[in-house]
Structures are given as structure tokens and as C-alpha cells.
């Protein structure tokens, strides 16, 4: 008499049951961890305001599109574009310099002649969902720069306001 094909020890459960067990444990452990852990996070968070929220927490001044336009028109701030170079070449705030966050050391070397610790600096990237300008601003602060302003609305907000753009097709 032959043994049934699936009679060996450790016989698998039905696939649906296998998946259900892992998913149920995931829900249980994830919920428990986020209720009990000191590192727990909010179940829901307004990520649309993440950059502004973090900038305020880091005490980084924020500029509106109108304020950024005044700074650019007056030439009072060194304007740094934290987007990748192709985006910078496609269009940028007038007078901006390219300092892509991913290549910030090389970018900052290109503008070092303008950099003094008290130099007013305006940083921006593409828009509300891009945090590279925030990261660049924090990096500049770590380097000792004290007069930093973040234009969180970025290039998208600048164009939406109808302000002039430099470069591009």
C-alpha cells in the first residue's frame, strides 16, 4: 500500500491559508509595534505639507513665490537650484546656480566665489513633493551658512505664478 503523496511531516497548508497567516501576523505585529514603540508614527500624516512642516521644525525660514520673486528681482540672494542638472537646463529661476543635491559638493565648488557665511541664500527644487532643496538647505546650515531661505513651492510654484524663467527651449 503506497502512502498518500502529501503525508510527509510538515505538509504545507493550502496556499490561501499560508498567505492569510503571514498577512494576519503582519497586521498584528505592525499594529502592536506602532502602538507600543517609542518610534511609532502617526497612522495618517499630511505629506502634502511635509517640506514646510520639517522646515519649520528645523527653523528654516520659508519664502512664498512672491517673496522669492522679490529676492530674485533685487539680486539680494544667491539662488541655488537643487534639481538634477537636466531639469536646471530645461528652465530655472533667473540667475540661479545649479547645485544638485546628489552632487552638492561639486555644485557648491562652482559657486564658492559667492559664498560667505552670512551670504543670503535661497534654495529651491521642483515643488511641494521634492525635498532636495530642504536637504541642501540643511547641508548648507551644517557647513555654517546662517542666512538661508527655502522656497518650498519651487519651480512649479514659480511658473504657476507666471514669473519669468531663464533657460529652456
Amino acid at each position, binding site marked *: 500500500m503506497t502512502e498518500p503523496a502529501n503525508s510527509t511531516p510538515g505538509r504545507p497548508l493550502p496556499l490561501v*491559508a*499560508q498567505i492569510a497567516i503571514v498577512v494576519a501576523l503582519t497586521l498584528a505585529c505592525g499594529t502592536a509595534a506602532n502602538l507600543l514603540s517609542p518610534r511609532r508614527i502617526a497612522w495618517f500624516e499630511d505629506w502634502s505639507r511635509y517640506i514646510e512642516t520639517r522646515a519649520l521644525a528645523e527653523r528654516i525660514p520659508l519664502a512664498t513665490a512672491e517673496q522669492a520673486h522679490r529676492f530674485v528681482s533685487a539680486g539680494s540672494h544667491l539662488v541655488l537650484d537643487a534639481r538634477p542638472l537636466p531639469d536646471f537646463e530645461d528652465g530655472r529661476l533667473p540667475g540661479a546656480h545649479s547645485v544638485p543635491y546628489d552632487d552638492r559638493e561639486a555644485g557648491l565648488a562652482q559657486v564658492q566665489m559667492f559664498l560667505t557665511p552670512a551670504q543670503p541664500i535661497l534654495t529651491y527644487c521642483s515643488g511641494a513633493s521634492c525635498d532636495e532643496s530642504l536637504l541642501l538647505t540643511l547641508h548648507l546650515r551644517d557647513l555654517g551658512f546662517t542666512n538661508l531661505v527655502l522656497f518650498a513651492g519651487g519651480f512649479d510654484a514659480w511658473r504657476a505664478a507666471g514669473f519669468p524663467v531663464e533657460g529652456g527651449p
Partner: protein
Amino acid sequence: MRRRGLIWACRIAIAGIFLAAGIPKILDPHGFAVAVYRYQMLPPFAVNLVAIYLPWLEVLAAFAILWPKTARGSAGILVLLLAVFTVAIAANLVRGIDISCGCFSVAEGSARIGWEEVVRDLAFLALAIIAALDPAPRRRG
């Protein structure tokens, strides 16, 4: 025997990979939430839910793949996760979004995504598919 050995070797490898991926995310849920947010592929309300539960899914599936009773189902879950990760990274590369992978580290300065991550994830996907095979297929007759 060789088939069984290959399948179990893949299961052990995939388990190690996903434990290495999931544990740092469990230890830094906010950092992982930032990484998820930066992919710009989820509605805002889903970001924190993914940051809370996805790492646990990775870790628990990694353990479950080592238990014969749940190995194939867990491998199926990991195949699905790897397919989603591969598509997400490739989509962001095509969109020109330059971000950290968030795959094995949630630190802001961690490795940026590139096509090498896509190739790597496809290799992991191949391991996971082998891990999902039945090590003792039933004989006919």
C-alpha cells in the same frame, strides 16, 4: 534531491535578504515613511500605513519561507513584493526622479536608485520564484 537543495538554498537566501531589508525599516519607521513619500507613487494617506506594515510583511514572510507549512505562500508574497519594488524603481528612473532607494537603508544619504537596483531586484525575483517552487512535486499515477 538537487531540486530540493536548490529550492531551499534560494529560500534561505531570500529570507536573509528580506530580513536585512525589513529590520532597519522596523527600527526607523519615520525614515522609511520619508523614503516611501519620496517615491511619489502613493496617495498621501497611504504613506504611513505602508511604512508601518510593509517592513513587518518582509520580516514575517522571511521567517515563514523557512517553515515548510508556509514556505510557498510566503515565497509568493515575496515574489509580488519584488515585482512591485522593481516596477517602482524603474518607473521613477524613467520619470527622472532622483531618490534614495530605501531598500536596505532609510538614511537620507543612502544609495540613490539606478538601473543596477532594477537588475539586482530582478535577480532577487528569480531567487524568489525558484523558492516558490514545490520541492517535492507529486508524481503522476
